[in-house]
């Protein structure tokens, strides 16, 4: 049920877009209104989620300390795994975001014959995650040729590199293959490993199936069920310049692709996909381990009235003297 539900949901989305465009002829709804709503919801929802996170106080200084902290000058500090300065934090965050260093340290625990518990390095999740995220980014950037009348040189260069094997026509993009392979692996990983399968929820499968659907529809559109691509660009430019037009004769597969992307955008702020913004908001990653230099004040500390020793002595000095107790001030 945890797997079937999201799968059926994605299939229903495809059917909905197909029926809406092919049968009911609602090109304007699926091509203009829904994308606008989805983008607006994505941007507003993203900002809302980040600001809401920003409102929550961080009571303790809790950076993960995965190496030697700053200590005596003759003890070498691990500046990336236990940063004590802003530069160190930026470095650790950059490596985390760009190469997923914490996933690289992923380990696997196995109970073997014996019984014997063994731990081993597990790099497949890291490799597949890296391949998936980077291809997704390159594909996203590549799509900017549809969003700009004159495609900048950088984007043409990325596209040229991505298709440099010159297979078929239109040229096969390497990232299409890598993305599809990586997402398929990530789905099978959840299905094949019993422990992962046990903790996987519909909210884990749905984005995977949705992205698989987006990639599949995009690949179908480029290589197999070709669409009137000049019309597509005309329509997209119309959308982004707020002069929506719906050219005739674009294939239905484009509307399916667009509807799935709109769904992803609208779903984004509601889901675990918010890790895009969330990684920067994680106190375990964005704080410096400098608690011995800088006092971290809990922002929701209640202003407690304290009675210090000085005040105590001021109050009872005379009585203390009479009783023969030592006082700090005469």
């Amino acid at each position, binding site marked *: 049920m945890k797997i079937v539900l999201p799968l059926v949901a994605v299939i229903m989305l495809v059917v909905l877009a197909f029926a809406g465009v092919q049968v009911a002829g609602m090109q304007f709804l699926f091509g203009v209104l829904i994308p606008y709503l989805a983008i607006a919801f*994505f*941007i507003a929802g*993203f*900002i809302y989620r*980040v*600001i809401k996170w*920003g*409102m*929550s*106080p*961080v009571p303790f200084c809790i950076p993960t300390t995965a190496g030697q902290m700053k200590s005596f000058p003759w003890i070498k500090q691990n500046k990336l795994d236990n940063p004590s300065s802003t530069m160190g934090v930026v470095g650790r965050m950059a490596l985390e975001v760009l190469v997923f260093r914490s996933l690289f340290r992923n380990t696997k625990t196995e109970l073997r014959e014996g019984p014997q518990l063994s731990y081993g390095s597990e790099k497949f999740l890291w490799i597949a995650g890296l391949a998936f995220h980077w291809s997704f980014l390159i594909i996203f950037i590549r799509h*900017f*040729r549809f*969003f*700009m*009348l004159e*495609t900048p040189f950088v*984007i*043409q260069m990325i*596209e*040229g590199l991505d298709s440099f094997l*010159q297979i*078929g*026509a*239109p040229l096969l993009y390497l990232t299409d293959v890598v993305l599809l392979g990586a997402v398929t692996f990530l789905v099978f990983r959840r299905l094949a490993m019993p422990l992962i399968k046990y903790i996987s929820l519909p909210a884990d499968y749905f984005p995977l199936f949705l992205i698989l659907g987006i990639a599949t529809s995009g690949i179908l559109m480029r290589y197999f069920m*070709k*669409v*009137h*691509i*000049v019309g597509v*660009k*005309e329509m997209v*430019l*119309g959308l*982004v*310049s*707020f*002069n929506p*037009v719906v050219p005739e*004769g674009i*294939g239905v597969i484009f509307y399916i692709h667009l509807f799935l992307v709109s769904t992803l955008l609208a779903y984004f702020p509601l889901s675990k996909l918010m890790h895009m*913004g969330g990684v*920067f*908001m994680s106190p375990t990653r964005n704080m410096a381990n400098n608690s011995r230099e800088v006092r971290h004040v809990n*922002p929701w500390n209640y202003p407690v009235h304290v009675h210090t020793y000085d005040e105590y002595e001021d109050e009872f000095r005379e009585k203390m003297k009479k009783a023969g107790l030592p006082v700090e001030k005469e």
Partner: protein
Amino acid sequence: MYNSGKIIAGLVVFLAFFAFPFYYNLGKANARPEPKLNTPVIQQLAEKKCVESRDFMRSEHMQLLNDWRDSVVRDGNRIYVNAEGKKHTISLQNTCMNCHSNKKEFCDSCHNYMAVKPYCWSCHIQPKEDKS
């Protein structure tokens, strides 16, 4: 909000990236390419028709040209039979470019719009056009 300076800076970067197409295209005209079909050869044709239908050619021409190349170069077959059963000689320069002799106004108009760079002319000789 805590650390509001850093968070707002991050959100500005987010907006700069994701809203880029919207502010980049502000006030820019959406100029759709109009490939020109008025070459002398096309004007003299009795039936103005390509080797396949317009819709097929519009979306599948790159696949067709790729198949044509493989057919000639690998199989030595220079005859193409279209959907209507009509035979055409497979040749970019003698069939395609015979009618569409205006590469700049025909091929390039859409290819530039879509930022597509076909590698036809790294082997074939690019036609010399009078109008430039």
